[in-house]
Each structure stands twice: as C-alpha cells, then as structure tokens.
C-alpha cells in the first residue's frame, strides 16, 4: 500500500511513536524493528534503514530510549534499545493524543478505524 499526500506527511511524525510502541514490551535491535514494522503493517510501512537509525539516535538523545551492545551466543554483536521510564511517559502521552486526534477525525470526517 502506498500512502500519498497528507498521510505520507503524517507518517513521518508517527515514526517516533511506532518505535517507542515496539520497544514498550521488550528491548529490540534496529534490524528487528524494521522487520516488525514491515511485518505488522503488512508491508505498508517501511523505513529506509538510515532514517530508522536516525530516529533511534534522536530518541536516545532525548533519553526516551537507551541503546546497549549485547552479544548473544551464536549471534553477531548487536545494539539493543530499551525504553526508559521517561520514554514510557512520552509514549502514554502520545498514544492519548493520537487517540483523541483519531476520535476527532472520525467525528469530523466520518472516518472509522477498525
């Protein structure tokens, strides 16, 4: 699925939300994140890999997530990102905002989401 126009613009703002959401349940590395996003969106959402890392570094700089090199047996050394308490608060706040935004759109434009 290709997004155009407004949605494409909106997608940029959602990147941070999506990354925080995926990290909320467990620490993950960058490649895993791209795979998850692609999988869960059924291929509709993809990140250029450099942009994904740019997002990760930005979040890390704001101390919403924290990266750490982990070496697991039989695997390559990878950098795992974990959400911080501050990150969780931001995520909760953002979720709330988005929810309110969607409700507003639904009421105004008659868009329903599943």
């Amino acid at each position, binding site marked *: 699925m290709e997004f155009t126009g407004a949605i494409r613009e909106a997608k940029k703002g959602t990147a941070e939300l999506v990354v925080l959401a995926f990290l909320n349940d467990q620490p993950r*590395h*960058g*490649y895993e994140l*791209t*795979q998850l996003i692609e999988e869960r969106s059924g291929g509709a959402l993809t990140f*250029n*890999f*450099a*942009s994904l*890392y*740019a997002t990760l*570094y*930005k979040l890390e700089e704001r101390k919403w997530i924290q990266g750490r090199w982990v070496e697991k047996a039989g695997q*390559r*050394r*990878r*950098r795992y990102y974990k959400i911080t308490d501050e990150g969780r608060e931001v995520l909760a706040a953002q979720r709330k905002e988005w929810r309110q935004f969607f409700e507003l759109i639904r009421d105004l434009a008659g868009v329903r989401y599943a």
Partner: protein
Amino acid sequence: MPDRELRRWKSLVRERADREWRELSLDVVDELACHLADLHAAALRGGSTEREARQAALDALNAASFLEVSKRPRARRGVGYGHDVRIALRQLVATPVVTAIAVLSLALGIGANTAIFSLVNSLSLRALPVKDPQRLAILDAQDNGSWTYPIFEELRRRSQLFDGIFAWDTQRFDLANGGITEFVDGAWATAGLFDTLGVSPIVGRTFTEADDVRGGGPDGPVAVIGYTFWQRRFGGAGDVIGKRLTLEGVPFTVVGVMPRGFFGPDVGHRLDVIVPVGMLTTVRPERSFEQRDYWWLSIMVRLKAGQSVDQATDAIRSLQPQIREATLPNRWPAADLVEYLRAPLTLAPAATGSSSLRQRYERPLLTIMVVVVLVLLIACANIANLLLARATARRHEWSVRLALGASRWRLVRLLLTESLLLSAIGAGVGLLVARWGSQLLVAQLSTQTNTVFLDLSVDWRVLAFTTGITVITAVLFGVAPAYRAAGVAPMEAIKEQGRSTGAGANRLSLANALVVVQVALSVILVVAAALFLRTFTKLATLDLGFEPSRVLVVKMSAERASIDNPAQRMAVYERARQAVAGLPGVQSAALSLVTPVSGNNWGNRLEVSGGVALTDSRRSALRNQVSPGFFDTYGQRLVAGRAFNNTDRVGSPPVALVNQAFARRFLNGENPIGHTLRRFPAQPDEPSREIVGVVGDAVYRRLRDPVPPTVYSSTTQSADVPTTEFNLSVRAAGSPALLTQSIADAIAVVNKDLALTFRPLSDQIGASLTQERIVAMLAGFFGTLALLLAGLGLYGVTSYAVSRRRNEIGIRMALGAAPAGVVRLVLSRVSMLVGLGVVIGAGISLWASPVVATLLYGLEPRDPATLASSIAVLAAVGAIAGWLPARRAARIDPAEVLRDS
C-alpha cells in the same frame, strides 16, 4: 565468516559516508553494517541467490542518506587523504606477509641506494664545512700532483690576487718517541689555512705567520689539534693549551683546538694535528721546505668576492712567467725546464675540497650506484607482482566501491596511498640500513696506513634523495595494481563472484612482463657481479713473483736516530738486520729501499750497453736497492747469473740484477748478463753497473700494472742511503705478527731511536686491493639479492598461473596426461619467460659492460665465459623457481578437481 562479511559491509558503509562527506562514529558504522549483514543473510535464508541478496542490501545502502545519522559533516579539506591512509594501513595490516616481504625488499633497496648515495654525497657533493666554500679554488697540479714551496711563496707574495692562500700536505705523524710507531693523521700547513678557510679555534689560537718560520716562532714549535684528537688524547681538557705533544720525536706546544666538524681541506682525511710548514726542517732534517725540486704541497686559494675561477686563473697566468722563472727547479734537464716554464697554471673550483679518495672511488661508486638502482628496480617489480596478486583478490572490493559511486581516480588514489605508505615504511627502515651500511663501507675503505674519515651525517641532499626514490619507488610498484584497479568495471567482480577468467589472464600478462624485466635486470647484475668477482679473484690469486705469506715488513726510520753521516745509516740498518736475522722464529731478514705494493717507488731512465734503441719515455725502469738475501727472503726466483753476495762491497766493481721484463724491453729478450747499464743521460755521481744476474718478474707498484722493467742494486755497494727510511723484510717460520715485540726489542739494542712501523706483507698487498674487494663484495651481494628476488618473482607468478589453471590441468590429467607432461607444460612457460629475460638482459649487458672496463683486470668486459656462466646461473634459478610449482601441478588429483568444479 560472519566477521569477514561484517568487515566488508563496514568498509562499504564508510565508503558511502565518505561520498556524502559525512563522518560516522565507529558505533554507527558498526550498527549500520550489522543491519546490512542481517539484511543480506535474511535474503539468503528467504531463498535469494547470493547475488540478489547482496544487491538487496546494496540497494538499501544506496538509498540511504547519512545526513541524519552522522554527527557532523566531515571537513572537506583533507577528506579522503586521512581516510585513504587509514584504509591503506588496514590493508597493510590485513596482509602481514605481503607487507613484511615488501617492506624488507624496500628497506634493502632504498637502504642500499641511500648508503651509496650518502657516500657519493660526502665524497663529491657536500661542500666543505667552512665559510663560503664556493669561493675556494685549488691550484690544479696535473703533472706532478703537487707544488713546491717556492711556487707557493711566489703566489703568496702577490697577495692582491686573492683573498687568501695556503699550502698544505697531509702527513701521518708518529707520536711515539722511538720504537714501535703510533701514528696520528695530520698535515703540514702554512699559516693562511685558518683565515683562508674561515675557521676559528674553539680553544686557544691558531698559528700565525710568526709561528710559521724555519725552526718555529717565538713560542717554539706549535701545533693546532682537532676536536676528536683533543677528546681522545686529552680527554677534552680545558687546560690543553700549552700542553706538550711529541711529533716525530720533536716536542710541540698545543696552541689551539679546532671546532668539531672541521676536518681540513681534504675530503676523506681528518686532520688531528696541524703544524706549520716552517717546522719541516726541524722534523725532517734532510728536507728543506724551500727546495725548488721538492714537490709536496697542495695549494688552495680563496677568490675575491665576485671573482670567478676563470678570472682568477687569468690573473695568475698573467704573472706566470715571473712565477715560473723565480722557481726553476735545480738540476732539471733543459727540456724539462722548457716544459716547466710553459705548463699553464690553472685554478679549479674547490667548494667540495680536494680528495684523492674521490678520484679513486668516483667510478667504482657510480658503478655500485647503478647496481643498487637496478636492485631497487627488481625489488619494485617484485612488489608490483605481490600487489597485483593482492589486487586480483581485491577486485571484488573495488568493483563494489565503484558500484557505490567511488570514482576511478579515487580508487587509484587509494592504491597509490597504499604504495606510498609501504614505500615510506621501507624508506624508514632503509635509512637505518643505510646508516649502518655506509659506516661499514667507510670502515672497509680504511687501511693500516690510511684512515678514511667521511662525514656521513644526513643532510638535505640525502633526505631529498631518499624522499625522491621513495616516491618514485611507490609510483613504480603502485602503478601496475592501480592500472588494474582503474580497469575494474562496477559490479563486474560481484557478478563473477571471484571466479574470474579474463581479468586473471590480464593480470598474468602484466605479471609475466614484470618477471621478464626482473630476469633481464638480474642478468645484468649477475654479469656485473661475476666480472667484478673474477677481477678480484684474478688479482688476489695473481702470481706476484714472490711469496708474500709469513713476511713481515718493518719500516725503520732514522729521522731522529741522530746519525749525521748518511754512510753510517746503512751500517745501522745492516746491524739491525743481523740482530733480527738471529732471532728465533726468523728464517731470514733482508733490507730493501722499496717493498712491493707499498705506494713508494724509485725509478730512472736508463741505457744499456748493446741495448735496443728506445724513446726517452720507454727508457724508464723502476729500481730497488736490496741487501744480499733479499731474493731468498721474498722467494723471488733467480733465473740466470748470481744474486748479490758479500763480495759486492764499496769499491768493488758496481753490479746490478735485472728482471726478465727489463731484458725484454732493453735487450729484446737477449741474455743481459755481461751488459752494463747506467743512468740516461749519464750522471757523474752514479757509476755504470754490470748486470750479473736475472731474477723473475715480480709485482712492484700495483698488482694491476704489468710488471715493469726493474733494476736491483746492492746495499753493500752503496756509499750513502737516499732516504732516512729503510725497510727490513723478515720471513718468519710461523705467524709474523708474533715476532713484532722481539724484533722491536732486538732493533732497540742496535739503536733505540729508530722508529719502527710493522706491517705484514700480505696486509700491504690486501690493502692495495681495497677498491676491487669492495666493488666485488657489493656487486656479489647485490647480484645474489637480485637473483633471489627474481627467483621469488618467478616462483610467485608460476604458482599463481598453476593455481589458475588447476581445473584445466586436472582435466588434462583425467584425460590421461602424464605428470611429466604437466611438469613440461609448466616449465615451458617458465623457460619462455626466463629465456626472454635472459636475451634482453644479455643484450643490455653486452652493450653496457664496456663502461666498467677500467675496473676490470685480466678479462674483457664482454667476456663470453662470464656471460655464459651468468646465464647458466639464471637458468638454474629459473628452473628451481619453476620446478616447485610444476611439481605441485603434477600432483593435482584429477578426481578432486572434477568434484570441485
């Protein structure tokens, strides 16, 4: 495997970031590379081919913008160069064996070049460490090699000609007070030396015109000493001024110390002691420095500011008639005097000082310089081949770099950076090799009677030279792989996945060409080495006409033995001979005025009764005065007649012995016995002598010279001795060196003031071959090195060719080819390369070898045997280098090859 994969991606990420001029932190590079590797691996797991998987990851990388992930843009200036050096270093570390071989070859090549160049530099190029050396000029002494004091005096009187003038003669002074000598290098000099050179003492004063008078000035005999001697002899004591120094038995007072680094006007000779010319007569009472026929001085002048050497020469020539007229040598034949008046006085530039060493070693050094340049070229070819092999392995990396948008120029730059880095490391090690090597060489130049001193400190010329050859070397061996890199097509190597055919063949033809060059250069070097080694061997094993082993030469100097009457000197020498002859361990002892290859000679023009008509110059014969028993002591053959004996006395009919060469020249080979000989033209003070015996030809002055006509007269018939020095040659039963002390003691009993210098005859002869020995040693060493390098190069290329043709060979064998056939197949390639190289090399050798003709002895520069044996050696090395990979090829298991392919 994952690690290699990850490294590859890391370098691609860096390359990509470079292209955007962004700098990524190490963590970011690691993380992005890890991501790409995961992507690649996942695609493979998903069923993609290797090529598709790689392309997918590359696409992701290509689509990325590093603007956001990079912390900062990289400064544009210097980008790349630092990065290039880092990449180059990584490459060098990644292939340690190749790097080590390359650095070692370069260190030897560059080191040898720098060592020889620094010798050439200090001998011929470096200006004297004095004030304004460009204004120094030397009075060119073509005929006599030196000047008389009266000529110097005439020039000095005309002080308006120059800004300064001095004369000097290098001399070894004996520090011992009788008995065994202890020499120090020094010079007689006129007082103008210091001002003319513009050097001041660091302690005390120099000597002045007032000191430079017959017998010494107001302070008596004074001496100025050099820095090194001050340190060595006086421990650098500050109160050295006024100290006593005994030279040749005469006490001198030290008045000054010259600065460190000052060695005098002669390159190759360091002046430890400088004494005024005016003291000559005190030290050598038989000499008068004012003598008009005593040629002993060199003369140097300082030109006036702005005056050219030619202008100064013109100025002297305008005064030449007066100068020559006032200094006519006494006792010269009229014809010689005419020549004397006519010979033009000429000045020559002397910014680099004067040096007999320079004349002697200039050609040998240039020859060796060519040799080491060739060695370096061979080393370059070898390294180029090594890098080419590595380049093939790296084609994949390059094509990916190109695919990612790197320019070809960028790739070439990267490779040249690698070459330059390699070359610079080689040069660094090479400088150490050079330092050690040049010191070793200078030490080899010194002999017992001639201590060679050369300032080998690294100056801008040496640095520029080394830097120059470093860069040239890097370009030479870096260009081949860079050329290959420039020819890589983007993604080509990826498509081929390392199983190339066409590109490998290209690399092989380039490599083959390099091997042919190596073989050709090696032929040249091996031929040169063989020529020099054979020259040295011929000289070292030359039939001297006498037996030098176990002969000790004792030079006896009666300078201060207070024997006034010259006639009594001979009696003293004879008593010394008898005392020594009676010592245990001494087989025989004999006196002679001259000993072979000693650097001294004595000659006259002669005429023989009933002899053939000869031109004046052909009448010259060398002479020697020897005691009875001389020919036995030396083992020189008596061919006809009799030797000297005790019936030959003062007052008995004067007799002479001649050698065979004399009979050939003066009597057309007739038996000379019974003929008489005398000086030509006849001299009233020398009688004619009857020839009573003929001895075998023996080397006199130089081993290289054909044996000259030689006349021997007897010490027992001599009324006086022409010099204060006489030689005692002692044949020992055992090692002659062990006799030194007992001989010294025995002679001291006869006269304790005789100064004695000991030297084994074989050492004296060996020292005369110093130049030949050094040239042969260096040429041999570098010839061997060249052979080794060429062998390695050939082996490498053949091995590579075999590994590339493994499949083909396997299939041939599967189809029934015998191992012997496979060996033939491989060796035929090798012989083609070697053959081509040998033909080219032999051709160049034949063309160029006459250049070294003057350095050879007893063989032609185009000596066919030398050429043939050199080619045989090359062929043998080629056979070994080719046989090893050939044998491996013959052992290829066809089944394994078929399974793998």
